[in-house]
């Protein structure tokens, strides 16, 4: 299978778009057939749809993955969740919900007014979250779909919806955060590895030719700071946090406490 088939050419693609033509190649059907073998397929489709899809790709070859191995992946807790369908509908249908969910301490939070805006899958936790705005508490929330116990649509006007959407957008903007990380020049030889490790973030890289220093500026949501810190610890002495002060203090705290674990309290 050659992923550079001429049928995928960009000019063909834009002409087909103009003429309103849908085409699908044997490559794509083969991929779909492979993915339909994943347990998620039986949850993502109604049984009749799944049956029809399987029939449609019957003649195609699945992708041969015998030679393919995965390493260092998190265990997949799920790829699809039964709440995806109703929540996706609620979001694209601009609905508000009343959400009940169990909290970290095990208590249930009942019928909270909810403005749902995105469904987010974490490649680290390997599960789905609902991102929503808590109308009464005026807070942005992220709740595991596993933790949702009940949801019901809630009556509202279009104006209500738009005003909540703009409130959530303002909060999201406020919550965005950034960090500046310097590659310690002695480790420039490992630049590729370091950049790969940060390639899952929005980022800007700058290079000072004179000093040979690479500086990476990461942009992330404030809620992700723990993950950025864990990535930074992951890379260890190869990188150094320049900003923010809070992150630098956290790194110092980690190093000091970690040394404490080894009985190395004194400097």
């Amino acid at each position, binding site marked *: 299978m*050659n*992923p*550079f088939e*001429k049928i995928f*050419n*960009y*000019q063909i693609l*834009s002409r*087909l778009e103009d*003429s309103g033509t*849908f*085409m*699908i*190649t*044997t*490559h*794509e059907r083969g*991929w779909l057939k492979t*993915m339909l073998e994943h347990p998620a397929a039986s949850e*993502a489709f109604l049984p009749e*749809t799944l049956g*029809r*899809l399987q029939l449609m790709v019957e003649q195609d070859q699945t*992708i*041969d993955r015998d*030679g393919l*191995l995965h*390493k*260092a992946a*998190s265990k997949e807790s799920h790829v*699809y969740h039964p709440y995806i369908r109703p929540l*996706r509908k609620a*979001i694209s*249908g601009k609905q508000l919900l009343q959400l009940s969910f169990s909290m970290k*301490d095990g208590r249930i939070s009942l019928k909270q007014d909810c403005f749902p*805006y*995105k469904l987010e*899958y974490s*490649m680290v*936790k390997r599960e789905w979250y609902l991102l929503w705005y808590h109308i009464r508490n005026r807070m942005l929330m992220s709740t595991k779909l596993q933790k949702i116990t009940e949801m019901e649509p809630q009556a509202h006007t279009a104006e209500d919806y738009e005003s909540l959407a703009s409130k959530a957008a303002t909060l999201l903007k406020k919550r965005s955060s950034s960090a500046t990380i310097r590659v310690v020049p002695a480790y420039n030889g490992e630049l590729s590895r370091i950049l*790969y490790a940060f*390639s*899952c973030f*929005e*980022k*800007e*890289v700058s*290079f000072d030719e004179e000093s040979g220093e*690479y500086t990476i500026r990461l942009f992330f949501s404030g809620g992700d700071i723990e993950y950025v*810190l*864990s990535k930074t*610890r992951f*890379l260890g002495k190869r990188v150094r946090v320049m900003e923010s002060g809070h992150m*630098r*203090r956290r790194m*110092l705290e*980690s*190093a*000091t406490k*970690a040394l404490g674990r080894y009985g190395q309290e004194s400097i």
Partner: protein
Amino acid sequence: MARESFDKEIQFLRMLALTSGAYNRQQYAERLGISVHTFDKTIKRLKEVVSAVHQQLPEDKGKEFAQTMRYSYMDSSDPMLLFLFRAKSLKESESQRLSLLLAAMQDKALTAMELLDLCCGSMPADLSLPDEKTIRGDLKYLEQVGVIKKETGARPFRYQIHNEMVRELSHEELLDLYDFVDMMASTQVPSVQGYLLRDGLKKHMARQPEADSAAAPFLYKYNYYSRILDEAHLFTLLGSIRQRRMVSFLYFSPKKDTSYASKNTNPLFERDTEGMQETMLPIKVIYDHQYGRWYLLGHHPGGAIRKYRIEGLTQITLGNEVAAELFEARKLELEQRIQHSWLIDTGKPVKVRVRFFHPGLGIPDFVRERVLLQGQWGEIVEEEENSFVYEIEVNGTIEIKPWIRSFGSSCAVLAPEKLRQEMIAEWKEIRAYYESI
């Protein structure tokens, strides 16, 4: 040299994606081992593809291309780098013809002669008109890539577009299909074909009367989006494994500064390539979820196991087939050697013991959760009130070390002693970085 030209584009896009804006043209060109002129030419070509694929993109006159390519999480549902796979060049007349043929076969089944007439009637005046042989050749190609189907029946044969998928599924079903394709392309590998399908479905659904204007509400957090660049080589390599064939390539170790050497046809500009010409028997392709990188592992004719980063492979060609017995023996040996590799290390196995500490009373135990989620085949062997001991046998400690370190003060290495000492030394260095606060 189509193959070579994609090597260049892949290296090019990878560098842009990873270093996002770090270099100027001159610096990029130097690192890619190409001239500034070639750099500009490649940028121009890629821009052409990008603007055709993403029609909504503004004219980016003053904007740097790298900026256009910048990954933005909230808009991450359309993978920017996918356009690479749309870059195969095609003559204007051929792309016109193929699109006309497909559009015609969308509504009804037609014969080659009917299609010829239709094509001759609709081709722009400045392009040469096709003959019957050309049309038959096109139909053969389209049938081969599965886009059209020959109807059963007597001659002359009729051909129709093979897209029952969208014609027979209801809008609701298509939505479910779109969501599934989106999720699988984003969370599984390989994903390129899935993203291509997703793209087609998305455009198809936007044309439907029931279309809702809202974009699909899915986000994928901490995904390594540049992973799809290496899928360009994936199928060649998986194919060679299936056919037990040797491969040859020019290898550029990612640790070197230059990552691509152009194959100059003008002898005046010929210079030594810095890559290494390698021949080996591929056995496994490994996707490393920790960094989003790909590796090729296999056997060197000299007898040793060889490991390559797929991003360093260029000019791959398939060689001879080896005997099934030999291949199986090599495969078995390799599988045993990497059974305990955290990633790909085939060094000496060592038992690593780490004590992890619970975060404290009343705080959910995210440490234990994470160890269970990411600790691969390691096991929790002792549990105490405030801590637990995790044990794993791995080949060497280099690859597991960053993972252990990422837990910060929530853990301490118990064994081996050497790793314990290394950790202490590293934390001391890290502490020194921040002590002046």
